[in-house]
């Protein structure tokens, strides 16, 4: 197990800065997921840990030792690639054994370890086959086996499930979680799939444009996003947003939106008045929007009306897509609900379920 630290690490390719002076500590034995959209720098972070890229500035430390210029093979880490990167001309056995052979491990030890790993990954029946003769899932298990067999200090996964179909992705995800518990190595996992991140991670690092936006446990990231980017990136369907102005009406502060005007107490006003221009973005998760009879209009909630025109039945939950005035709205209702379409319906959301962001900076208030 390894403790990995980024200390003001920057990475540029020519004039293009990909990572901007970021610091991060990955604790020994944890499964940390780097989550973000394409081009956000998450793979570059992983490749710098691997030694496949050298930081332009700052230090990367593994167990306290600066490894900026240490070669990948000397870092005692293993990597699983998105496209498996299995040697096509070698059998599964040879693929698994290759790294150990390169390190001069005794033949009997190699054989024992290959069979152990193959058995634990349920690929022992395919040891004599070549990668082209395996399914996508089997290839991915061989790729994981190749990483595991060396018993490295840390495992790096670069979008390992992207090439698998939806069902296999869920199975392999579970497999990776089980392996992480079994082998107890520090694991850094890169993905743009928030479901993978939420289900696998001890902690998630959300990245955007070369910057770390937020680091936290999955529930923290989902429940208290630091900014509008994290709020929008984590959670599917995306959070609903309502632009409101903080105004005084009848001697009391109000949040004013074309659809509603809600009085707020002094404490909340105090918190929100930090927003430049007193312009605020309210965020509400689809599951926190309450329809019709569930509406609890009052001092602790916001009420508005919306007309829905699309129903998405996903099985356990149904999503309704529509508009509240000019604002697009998505609401989650229980499976089987059949609300009337294209008819204005009352909606409400409790203050406790609202997220408040400064519109200008996008930061959480």
């Amino acid at each position, binding site marked *: 197990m390894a403790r990995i630290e980024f200390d003001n690490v920057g990475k540029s390719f020519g004039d293009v800065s990909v990572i901007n002076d970021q610091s991060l500590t990955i604790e020994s034995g944890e499964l940390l997921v780097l989550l973000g959209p394409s081009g956000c720098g998450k793979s570059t972070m992983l490749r710098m840990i*691997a030694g496949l890229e050298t930081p332009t500035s700052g230090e990367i430390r593994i167990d306290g030792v600066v490894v900026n210029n240490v070669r990948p093979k000397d870092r005692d880490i293993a990597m699983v690639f998105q*496209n498996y990167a299995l040697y096509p001309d070698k059998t599964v056995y040879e693929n698994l054994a290759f790294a150990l052979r*390169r*390190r001069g491990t005794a033949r009997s030890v190699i054989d024992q370890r290959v069979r152990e790993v193959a058995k634990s990954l349920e690929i022992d029946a395919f040891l004599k086959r070549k990668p082209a003769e395996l399914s996508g899932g089997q290839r991915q298990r061989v790729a994981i086996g190749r990483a595991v067999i060396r018993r490295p200090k840390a495992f790096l996964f670069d979008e390992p499930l992207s090439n698998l179909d939806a069902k296999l992705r869920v199975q392999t995800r579970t497999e990776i979680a089980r392996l992480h518990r079994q082998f107890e190595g520090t694991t850094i996992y890169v993905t743009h799939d928030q479901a993978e991140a939420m289900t696998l991670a001890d902690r998630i690092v959300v990245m955007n444009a070369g910057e770390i936006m937020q680091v936290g446990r999955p529930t923290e990231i989902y429940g208290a996003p630091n900014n509008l980017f994290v709020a929008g990136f984590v959670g599917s369907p995306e959070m609903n947003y309502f632009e409101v102005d903080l105004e005084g009406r009848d001697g009391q502060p109000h949040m004013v939106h074309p659809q509603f005007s809600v009085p707020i107490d002094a404490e909340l006003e105090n918190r929100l008045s930090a927003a430049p221009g007193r312009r605020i973005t309210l965020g509400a998760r689809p599951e926190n929007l309450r329809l019709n009879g569930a509406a609890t209009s009052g001092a602790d909630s916001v009420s508005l009306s919306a007309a829905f025109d699309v129903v998405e039945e996903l099985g356990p939950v149904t999503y309704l897509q529509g508009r509240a005035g000019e604002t697009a709205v998505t609401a989650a209702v229980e499976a089987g609900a059949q609300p009337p379409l294209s008819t204005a319906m009352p909606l409400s959301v409790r203050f406790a379920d609202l997220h408040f962001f400064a519109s200008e900076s996008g930061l959480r208030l």
Partner: protein
Amino acid sequence: MITTALRCAGLFVVMFFSLFPVYWIISFSIRETSELLKYPPSFFPETINFDAFVTLFEFIDMTGYISNTLLVSLSATAITIIVSTMGGYALARRKFAGRDAVGLMMLSSQMIPTILLVVPLSLIMQFLGLLDSHVGLVFALVGITIPVGTWMMKGFIETVPFELEEAAVFDGCEAWEVPVRVVLPLIMPGIVTVGMYTFILAWGEFVFSLTLLRSEEMRTLPSAMAVNFGRTSIDYEVLMPMAVTYMAPALLVMSLFQRQLTRSIAQGALKG
């Protein structure tokens, strides 16, 4: 049904035009001398004998010509394979200033007709003291084959996912070992293709061998054929078996590596 029939007929016409000259040369090489100048000629030989081959090897230094041609062709093939593989790897994998320009220059060199190179190459070889030497001819040949070979190898190397090389680095390979241990085994079909292309081109190359080689003991088969025959008369009795001897190695190489060549053409499914 009609489409298949038309397709077969088309193929037959193409095959006839490709294979008839080959048949005619082989057929004439095994006919009696008296039959050679018969008019109209018969499609099938009336008698079969191999006396012409015996005569050929008895009165002409065929062994010398063949060994010269083999020496030149194999040297050019070996040099082309080594240089093209390394050059192709550099063009496919390494980033360096002028990479695209180097690639384009290599490609554009193919646009110059060989005949235009004869005079400057002769002067260069004379200056280097390589005129009338096999080394000079090999240099001239690889000047043509290396650019093409490099482009072919670049294409083959680009089909090998780069992640394989990165995986090899994690598995403990040194930087120099990665291309050798990981890439090389996967581009063998490409190497065979480049080798075949070079060997066949070098074996049959005529213009350079005629102009750069002067003395009889240096001659390769194509120029020997031109020099020995056709000035004042055409001696079919010797020309046809000589042509068969000349064709044989190229046909042999093609048939031996045909499967590899087909595989290399169909290659591209290296992932996984």
